[in-house]
């Protein structure tokens, strides 16, 4: 029997009086690569927070490797937040952010073995230069690499990424997918990623979840990313955008 990395059923999340998610039910096997797609405000980030145990659902169940979300072993899940949420005023160096991933706390003094582990991960992520540059002065792509290193160093079984391609150039993006694929196959890890790029979903993911507050589709990319479902997800009631859907589903 295949182990399920994530199982949800009848999931409903309310933020105040706003129903952010409802009727979410899917099963993602271990070592899967799930792309979450949907328009802005669809509840994608909210779903990630539910999987992390940061947001308690109003109804339904969520299990991550068989445990209730957020209750599994501490380092089992790695999380890469949206870069735009970074507080650029916080004084910090790349190495400290990576070591915070090892420790689960902000480091006062970095021990030698922590430094070695962190440097190894930074090298793999291609960020072994610019170590003296404060985080606030790094580009979006460079920050993303630091966060990748921070995740790899923890050896998580499940890696959650919120719009990781933001701020990356094409080369950096290709490099990131290569790193993610490498990590996934080497450690039998599961990856869940929010993206706006349908091609990325088609080429890299084993599964796709199409969301617009409700679950519109879950399955393999070819099954889910079809005209009607995309229209349901992205089209507004009364004035759909058929042109956008046709253009993007042609290639």
């Amino acid at each position: 029997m295949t182990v399920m990395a994530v199982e949800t059923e009848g999931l409903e999340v309310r933020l105040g009086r706003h129903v952010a998610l409802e009727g979410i039910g899917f099963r993602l096997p271990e070592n899967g690569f799930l792309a979450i797609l949907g328009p802005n405000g669809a509840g994608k980030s909210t779903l990630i927070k539910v999987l992390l145990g940061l947001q308690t659902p109003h109804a339904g169940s969520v299990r991550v490797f068989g445990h209730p979300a957020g209750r599994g072993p501490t380092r089992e899940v790695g999380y890469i937040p949206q870069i735009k949420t970074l507080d650029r005023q916080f004084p910090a160096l790349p190495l400290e952010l990576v070591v915070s991933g090892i420790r689960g706390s902000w480091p006062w003094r970095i021990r030698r073995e922590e430094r070695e582990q962190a440097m190894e991960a930074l090298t793999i992520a291609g960020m072994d230069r610019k170590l003296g540059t404060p985080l606030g002065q790094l580009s979006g792509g460079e920050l993303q690499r630091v966060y990748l290193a921070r995740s790899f160093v923890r050896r998580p079984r499940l890696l959650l990424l919120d719009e990781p391609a933001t701020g990356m150039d094409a080369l950096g993006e290709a490099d990131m997918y290569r790193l993610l694929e490498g990590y996934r196959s080497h450690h039998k890890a599961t990856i869940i990623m929010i993206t706006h790029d349908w091609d990325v979903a088609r080429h890299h993911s084993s599964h796709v979840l199409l969301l617009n507050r409700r679950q519109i589709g879950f399955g393999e990319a070819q099954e889910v990313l079809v005209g009607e479902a995309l229209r349901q997800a992205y089209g507004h009631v009364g004035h759909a955008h058929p042109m956008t859907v046709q253009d993007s589903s042609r290639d």
Partner: protein
Amino acid sequence: MIEMLQSGFMQRAFLAGVMVAYLAGFFGVFVVQRGLSFLGNGLAHAAFGGVALGILLDREPLWIAVPFTVAVSLGIVWLTERTRLGADTSIGIFFAVSMALGIIFLSQTERFTTDAFAYLFGSILAVRWSDIYAAGALVLLSVAVWRWWGHWAYATFDRELAQSDHVPCLRGDYLLAVSIAVTIVVSMKLVGITLIAAFLVIPAATARLLAVTFRAMTVISICIGVASVLLGLVFSWEYDLPSGPCVILTQAAVFTLAFAWKSLRSG
């Protein structure tokens, strides 16, 4: 100089000054980095309510102001957490209520002017041994909770990231608010209620200009805080001025120097 160091009240002022400067420098980095300077202001005014109650009841104001201010700090975190009101709104409510109570308490007593002036603007003459014990206890406590520096820093950097690592962020918020509250109460005799928010903010803001890491910011903030208090107290003695403004102006001078140095280097 010798005369200054031999005087008993000046010895007490220096002793209390070094300790409250350490506390303000240490907790100030979180105040600055989390944008909590309004919390500092609100708690200072809550402390005023506690002091006024102490004066009215003819008790040592410190022992009334500590529980009063701690209760207000807990109330602020609780109200912010439980409602959709922003922290500034919760602070504003508690701030006004404590001030209003303080003014009513003071209106009921005769000994308003002399005591209140010292508490509002700071006085080196006012420091008693009880203030030094209270500050010392808090210094010991801040060393005992040293591991919280890493939790607070992590949650300041990215709260959700810290929560996903099971850092108890809400407990951290309560502990931080209480620590800031007690720091404010033990600092008020030297610095004065009106200037305490600035006293918490300026050393940390100066350190922020100079530091690349949060650890360096913490160390520099403490050093600048302690140096400014020592210098400020000397000015207060020499020119017979209230100690609060002397300390704050010294901090501001250090900030200006750091700012000029930083501008020259990068420009």
